[in-house]
């Protein structure tokens, strides 16, 4: 009797957790997992979902809040379990494993021509893996110099513009002039030194990863790759014009020192302006400057935010239609303003709201055409290369513990060993 009662209890417990099936005659429901996190951005995403739902009674979109902090693990588990959201917000540098793993739908042929043409080919490159396109790149941000305007004016240095930026040499001279009395010309937040170094090295023609005719990638640290790292190294170790203490910090960690006048400039992502607007003390004047330019001008690497569709989604066409709606030029502008980033769409980029001088939107927008896929974007084995080889090597080089020759040796010798394992 007791045993039977126990079984009834167990079955009741299981039944309580069983969700009911969707009504086959009801509207289609798509789950859209968004990683929006800033107040305005979340609001815009929810508004757009509501607008879609109001005009599409047969295809209902459910907004699901995800988190940048844990998206990879969460998605991987969902994919394996066949429970992934239909529409997935992520970043292009996180897509390679999912695309090659067959978890994401190839969007070729699913998206309307309007959207395909609106986004430039170099942005599509960030989400193209093999022969397929596995995400729509829609938001991106350049790395810029956020500068203390008063310090720059006091020092009388030339103010760079997107048309006439500083060279890396000039940048080093300027930071030298801005230093002294316990203050630094620049603070490099290099907690994640590899992506910053690789992305900014594109300006000097650095590629680091070279793909051969056989499709295999090898690491070669050439002169163009050395320009940006050498500048940072010399600013820290030779000129003392860059703070050594921020090398292990994240971008937000440098802001108190920036507001306190300790650093004249901080290289940060364009979207950090929101934090600066919120946190800067009253009377603090700041401006956005383009990152230094090398032989290839202002070119730099980016990993745009993306929207993808799960391979297992039974409603891919409806999901593609929702993405098309979400990324119409006006909506793309709303999303960009909410995230303080730049849209990838050429029509959206023309919007006057992105060309205002307020918060230096215009400076960032002027850089949009120079943004290219991050060099490591499609290199298989890059995460291991980054963690085991490149991160410690760059950290030691920037801190002055090793020289450029040792940095080159480690990246090439150890790096190629790692990549070779992924390309057999």
């Amino acid at each position, binding site marked *: 009797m007791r045993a039977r009662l126990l079984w009834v209890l167990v079955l009741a*417990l*299981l039944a*309580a*957790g*069983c*969700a009911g099936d969707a009504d086959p005659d009801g509207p289609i429901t798509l*789950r859209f997992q968004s*990683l929006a*996190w*800033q*107040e305005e951005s*979340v609001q815009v995403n929810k508004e757009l979902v509501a607008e879609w739902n109001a005009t599409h009674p047969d295809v209902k979109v459910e*907004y*699901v*809040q995800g*988190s*940048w*902090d*844990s998206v990879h*693990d*969460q998605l991987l*588990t*969902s994919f*394996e*379990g*066949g*429970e992934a*959201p239909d529409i997935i917000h992520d*970043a292009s540098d996180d897509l390679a494993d999912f695309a090659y793993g067959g978890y994401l739908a190839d969007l070729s042929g699913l998206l309307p021509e309007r959207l395909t043409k609106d986004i430039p080919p170099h942005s599509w490159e960030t989400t193209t893996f093999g022969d397929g396109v596995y995400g729509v790149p829609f938001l991106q941000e350049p790395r810029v110099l956020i500068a203390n305007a008063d310090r720059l004016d006091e020092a009388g240095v030339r103010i760079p513009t997107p048309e006439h930026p500083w060279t890396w040499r000039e940048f080093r001279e300027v930071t030298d002039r801005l230093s002294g009395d316990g203050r630094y010309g620049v603070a490099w937040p290099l*907690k*994640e030194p590899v992506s910053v170094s690789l992305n900014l090295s594109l300006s000097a023609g650095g590629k680091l990863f070279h793909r051969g005719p056989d499709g295999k990638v090898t690491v070669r640290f050439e002169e163009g790759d050395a320009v940006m790292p050498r500048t940072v190294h010399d600013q820290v170790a030779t000129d003392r014009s860059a703070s050594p203490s921020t090398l292990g910090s*994240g*971008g*937000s960690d440098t*802001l*108190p*020192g920036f*507001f*306190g*006048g*300790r650093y004249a400039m901080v290289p940060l*992502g364009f*979207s*950090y302006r929101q*934090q600066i607007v*919120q*946190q*800067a*003390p*009253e009377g603090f004047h700041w401006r956005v400057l383009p990152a230094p330019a090398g032989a290839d001008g202002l070119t730099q690497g980016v990993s745009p*935010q993306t929207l993808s569709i799960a391979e297992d989604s039974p409603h891919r066409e409806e999901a593609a239609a929702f993405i098309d709606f979400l990324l119409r030029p006006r909506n793309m502008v709303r999303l960009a303003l909410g995230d303080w980033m730049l849209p990838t769409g050429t029509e959206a980029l023309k919007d006057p709201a992105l060309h205002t001088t307020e918060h230096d939107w215009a400076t960032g927008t002027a850089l949009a055409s120079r943004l290219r896929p991050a060099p490591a974007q499609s290199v298989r084995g890059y995460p291991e290369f980054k963690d085991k080889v490149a991160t410690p090597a760059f950290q030691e080089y920037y801190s002055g513990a090793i020289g450029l020759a040792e940095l080159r040796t480690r990246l090439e010798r150890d790096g190629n060993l790692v990549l070779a394992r992924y390309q057999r």
Partner: protein
Amino acid sequence: MRTSRTGRAGQYAALLAYLVFLAFPFLWLVSTAFKPPRELARLHPTWIPEDPTLANFRQAFDEQPLLDAALNSLAAALGTAVIAVLLATPMAYVMARRRTRLARAATGWVVVSQAFPLVLVIIPLFLVLKNLRLIDSMTGLVMVYVVWALPFALWMLVGYVRAVPRELEEAAAVDGAGRLRTLVSVTAPLLAPGLVATALFAFVTAWNEFFFALVLLKTPEKQTLPVVLTHFIGAEGVADLGPLAAAAFLATLPSLVVFALIQRRITGGMLTGAVKS
């Protein structure tokens, strides 16, 4: 053995330093939660907010469904604590009283199972729960939490059971009590501090757990507090620090309250005097 005055002062100093060390993160969290954005980014921060504000709390509640998330966490934590204790008590009794090879092997397995990393079990677990249609369900989450908390709960309780003198049970047997009656009427009351400590452990484990909740719960209305807290963190670790601190401060309160309420029962030494030596 008597401790010299200097030695005692040293002990107190060490204790004070340890308490400060333990309290620092929490006090800093409280301080941050009440600071306006401009004070958060000062080069020389202050302990006491100069212009204290509740704006971070308002923003946190406006942006995320904190109250619903807290209720979900509470349901998961209470369910886990109750079920874990109910299951662990008889199991621990057997393992403590029966010194067989099987009991020793079970104890060893319990200890080893604590070393499994989450990522090792999450995908098979996800598939099992999916087949049981328990994904996105509080029942499924509680089941996982119970399974996850049970080994350590068991290990804790075994120690408490062993601390209960056998002579008391033997005396009860002499008086005619059966095994179940002995467990319920004699052993369980003496185990009260251990049961409370075990329940507390299970509660806190479930209350703080993040990864299983992240993976298993899909519907926004069902998400627990640790999952919702991550929504204040953006790409590259950028955080909306004020609202995050406010929400995290609220998230720590239930654990603190539970600890404050029952700490005496944990440390009260209820076994003192149970047996005359």
